[in-house]
């Protein structure tokens, strides 16, 4: 499964995943704009639905990071919403999930990696944040660094591997079994896509919350 490139402008190559991502961004933005145009105190069905989604995400984040829930909500919520749509978009004939591209999952993992440090430094300050790498003993500093790198790599590989293998399995079943047989596989695809989006977002939330609350977990002596 090679990456499909649409066009290139000099050294900049525009891949199919990027185009799909733009499409997803457009759809999400339009839906967001449409659903929040006329917000009212007495909500309708649509407003109730979107408020329910946001409230559920906010509650999940507040359960892990109660003091800084509103700070990390845009990042984590966007991850969840984007990954759900990105993972499920492969069900539409002719389209492929952007998350089956390692470059996309790596970009998201890198964003998680940097956001962890960004939110950690923002909430605790640079000195306090870096202090937790030396606790409980400075000897553990290399292990902390290795942990940071490997979990970021694991994030990228896990999502990429699951979605790529899911689409590949679905394609193979479709080729071998005919027209109606892939339906259970497609249902499995839906579940797997939702689970992978949830896992990626939840892990990102835990990493960010861990960075934010590291001061509480390892207070300086």
């Amino acid at each position, binding site marked *: 499964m*090679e990456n499909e490139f649409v066009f290139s402008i000099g050294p900049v190559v525009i*891949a199919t995943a990027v185009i799909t991502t733009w499409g997803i961004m457009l759809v999400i933005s339009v839906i*967001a704009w449409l659903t929040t145009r006329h917000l009212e*105190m007495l909500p309708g069905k649509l407003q109730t639905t979107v*408020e329910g989604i946001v409230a559920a995400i906010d509650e999940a984040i507040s359960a892990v990071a109660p003091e800084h829930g509103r700070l990390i909500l845009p990042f984590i919520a966007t991850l969840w919403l984007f990954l759900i749509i990105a993972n499920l978009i492969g069900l539409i004939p002719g389209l492929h999930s952007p998350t089956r591209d390692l*470059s996309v999952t790596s970009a998201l993992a890198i964003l998680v990696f940097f956001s962890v440090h960004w939110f950690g430094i923002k909430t605790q300050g640079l000195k306090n944040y870096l202090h937790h790498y030396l606790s409980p003993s400075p000897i553990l500093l290399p292990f902390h660094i290795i942990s940071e790198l490997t979990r970021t790599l694991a994030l990228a590989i896990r999502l990429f591997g699951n979605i790529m293998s899911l689409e590949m399995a679905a394609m193979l079943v479709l080729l071998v079994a005919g027209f109606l047989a892939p339906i259970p596989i497609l249902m499995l695809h839906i579940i797997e896509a939702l689970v992978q989006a949830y896992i990626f977002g939840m892990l990102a939330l835990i990493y960010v919350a861990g960075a934010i609350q590291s001061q509480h977990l390892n207070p300086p002596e």
Partner: protein
Amino acid sequence: MEFNLSTFVFEIINFLILIWILQRLFYKPLLEVIAKRKRFIDQSLSEAKNLKLQAEQQCSLYENRQKLWDQEKQSAITALHRQLEAERKAHLEKLNADLEQERQKANVLLLKQQRELQQQSEKQALLNGAKFAGMLLQQSAGPELEARLFTMLMDNLVTLPEACKLCLTMFGTKKSVPVKITSAYPLPVEMRLQLEQKLDALINSQINFQYHQNNALIAGLRMDIGAWVLNANLQHELIGFTEIGYESD
């Protein structure tokens, strides 16, 4: 499984842009309206609590007022009952007094009626007695009875009271004194002579004797000397019984 740097960079930028867009268009307005609604709900709850508190206070106040009203009502009812009892007692006393008065009046009236009835009965008894005595005496009357009555008259003329004797003496100043002698039976000559001698002894004037017979006397005599009348007959005695009955009224 190729890694493309352009895609990597584009995805980073795309995601950051998506975060920015959603933050502006989605999360912020939604969270604001949720927070606004939460504030509204909290405010409503607070107002509801205040209203509930006020309502409870009002309820307590009205309950206290209700208790006071009940107490006042009970006091008023008690006072009313007391007043009614006093009124009832006064009316009852007045009624008893009126009844007693009426009872006394009725007793007096009854006594009066009884007395009248008794008097009437007595009078009727006397009348009946006189009537029956008259009937009996009419059947049993005769010359013998009349002779005894004549004897009694003669005795009475001897034992007249002084006032009567003085009255007969006063007739002596007149020239002639008419004496009307009425008897139930014809008076015999001997008796007439005895009577005339007796009267001549009592009256110092000439006496004009007139003899009459009247069966209504039943038995006995009646002497009319001027205005003075001396009765020695049964009719007069029976009339005396009747007069006793009338006098008792």
